């Protein structure tokens, strides 16, 4: 998602994300070839073309383009059962739910969920599936708001329980800001019930939010400037009591808090005096944010590119996981030059446009709730205390002993499926096989015949939650390491070695004698490859388990963590 050394087109960013762009503005955006082409197949019972006209322009924000193929109109959606030929990346079921109003809503939802499951069984096609719900207020006879609400609830439950299946929440879009979601004239002409504004809104939701969330690495950090970004004014000149906080700034601060609650890490990167910033957050009671909401703070007179890179290093993240918001285009240009992988947003002075951009920016949308969001900021702040402990300790062993670590090993624990999927798709540095597991693959690996360990960690300073995964396929005396992942938050405490050693012992107990390891080199997974190199220095693909177990066991025999196993 990096934009390279040239900063983004600010006007395009504001046009597409801050307000609702006009159809003519979207049509005027020339088609350009992008770095990634996404193929979307649409099985439908109402027109999708009016939406797909406008999806592509929003995908320019993340250097992608779209190729859409649509089925004939078919209320039965029988095409879902067609054998897949690997020709699509995403399947969309675009359903005119009014056609199913004779059914009970729960029955209608069950029909489509069963259809998707049957389609996967028949075709072996495991691509992600999107299904639309229905907005209230359409006024069609027999389609009451209570019927629509019950349908939405049943679809929510059905898609939550079906791997890689997600809801396009039209009802949520309707409630966001556009009362005229329906247009009966469009319905009369083309059996397309939605207004032009709703159409652009739906296209933006798909192109800027849902599709990137399906296929791109997510952003993890939102770093913000202070002056003319979180408030109006210059702190160094106006003082903590003199800067002005308007409704747009309050909306922006609330938006940042929502992002934090959704699992994103907040960081502060500003050229100011630290003491002024501390006074500002202490004095201004109308601030929704407090200084403690930021997991990393760089308030000094150093360069912003250097400070953003230092935030990435502190959080153990690649700079491409950071989105930086600043009001100064010259400052942003310097970041684009000095830290080119950091993504950038130009703040508007009122804060209102910035809040709107952050509510829709690619990489900031979660398809499912983040399973460990509540723990993240506290855990990252604890890492700074750990660094101080490490510096004060006489040697590494004393440091680890002082932490009082407890490692919980969960064997094939289906309740962790969502977290395992999340770790597989967001972990870049300690990701040995880069398997990028789908929800369906996670469900299979948690099933019989496989060994999948989810590993939780806590110490005296914080509870890190589930931070690592080891997944093996077992076939007789052979085991294959499908994936080994660890959150960068948990690195530096040798927990990966503890878990690896324990897993090898468990495989041995299960009768395995040989381990197949297909590590893959990616752009950022050097830490995982270096870890493996400790035990497999020659890069062998198949290693006798006994030899590996001895080497790994030697490595962790004095590790002080308490290990608890849950089967």
């Amino acid at each position, binding site marked *: 998602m990096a934009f390279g050394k040239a900063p983004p087109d600010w006007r395009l960013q504001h046009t597409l994300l801050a307000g609702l762009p*006009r*159809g*003519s503005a979207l*049509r005027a955006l020339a088609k350009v070839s992008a770095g990634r082409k996404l193929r979307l197949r649409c099985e439908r019972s109402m*027109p999708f*073309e*009016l939406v797909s*006209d406008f999806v592509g322009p929003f995908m320019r924000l993340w250097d992608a383009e779209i190729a859409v193929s649509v089925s004939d109109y078919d209320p039965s959606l029988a095409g879902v059962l067609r054998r897949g030929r690997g020709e699509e990346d995403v399947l969309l079921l675009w359903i005119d739910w009014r056609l199913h109003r004779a059914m009970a809503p729960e029955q209608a939802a069950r029909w489509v969920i069963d259809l998707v499951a049957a389609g996967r069984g028949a075709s072996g096609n495991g691509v992600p599936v999107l299904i639309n719900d229905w907005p209230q207020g359409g006024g069609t006879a027999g389609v009451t708001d209570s019927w629509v609400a019950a349908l939405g609830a049943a679809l929510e439950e059905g898609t939550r329980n079906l791997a890689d299946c997600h809801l396009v929440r039209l009802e949520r879009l309707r409630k966001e800001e556009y009362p005229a979601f329906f247009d*009966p*004239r*469009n319905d*009369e*002409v*083309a059996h*397309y019930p939605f207004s*032009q504004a709703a159409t652009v809104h739906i296209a933006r939701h798909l192109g800027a939010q849902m599709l990137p969330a399906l296929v791109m690495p997510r952003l993890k950090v939102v770093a913000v400037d202070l002056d003319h970004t979180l408030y109006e004014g210059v702190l160094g000149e106006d003082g903590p009591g003199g800067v002005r906080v308007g409704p747009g700034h309050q909306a922006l601060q609330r938006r940042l808090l929502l992002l934090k609650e959704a699992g994103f890490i907040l960081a502060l990167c500003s050229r100011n005096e630290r003491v002024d910033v501390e006074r500002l957050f202490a004095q201004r009671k109308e601030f929704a944010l407090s200084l403690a909401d930021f997991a990393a703070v760089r308030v000094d007179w150093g360069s912003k590119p250097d400070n953003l890179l230092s935030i990435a290093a502190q959080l153990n993240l690649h700079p491409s996981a950071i989105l930086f918001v600043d009001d100064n285009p010259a400052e942003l240009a310097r970041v684009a030059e000095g830290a080119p992988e950091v993504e950038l947003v130009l703040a508007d002075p009122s804060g209102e446009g910035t809040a709107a951009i952050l509510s829709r920016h690619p990489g900031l949308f979660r398809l499912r709730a983040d399973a460990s969001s509540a723990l993240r900021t506290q855990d990252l702040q604890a890492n700074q205390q750990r660094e101080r402990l490490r510096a004060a300790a006489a040697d590494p062993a004393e440091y680890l002993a002082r932490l009082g670590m407890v490692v919980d090993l969960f064997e094939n624990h289906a309740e962790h499926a969502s977290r395992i999927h999340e770790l597989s798709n967001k972990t870049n540095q300690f990701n040995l096989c880069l398997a990028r597991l789908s929800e369906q693959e996670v469900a299979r690996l948690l099933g019989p015949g496989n060994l999948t360990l989810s590993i939780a960690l806590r110490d005296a300073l914080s509870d890190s939650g589930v931070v690592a995964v080891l997944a093996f396929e077992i076939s007789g005396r052979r085991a294959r390491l499908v994936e080994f992942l660890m959150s960068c938050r948990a690195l530096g405490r040798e927990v990966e070695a503890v878990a690896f050693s324990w897993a090898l012992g468990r495989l041995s107990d299960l009768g395995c004698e040989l381990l197949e390891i297909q590590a893959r080199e990616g752009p950022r997974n050097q830490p995982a490859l270096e870890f493996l190199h400790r035990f497999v220095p020659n890069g062998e693909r198949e290693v006798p388990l006994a030899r590996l177990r001895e080497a790994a066991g030697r490595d962790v025999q004095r590790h002080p963590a308490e290990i608890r196993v849950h089967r």
Partner: protein
Amino acid sequence: MTSRERIAAILSEILGVPIDAAQEYAREQAENWDSLNHLRIVLAFEEEFGVSLQPEEVVAVRCLSDLERLAQRTA
């Protein structure tokens, strides 16, 4: 640009054919002026001229001159 030229530009862009604003252009002349493109044309016209057509007007549009009359009415 005259209203007629702006309308011709909309028709040309959506139907993918060159259209001379000096000439009449009717639905029958375009193979691809189907219901979806009809909707695209009307919605683009409304946005361009800042108007909202009545349902019966949407259905009644048959040619460039129909749209020109609607544009003049709302001018």
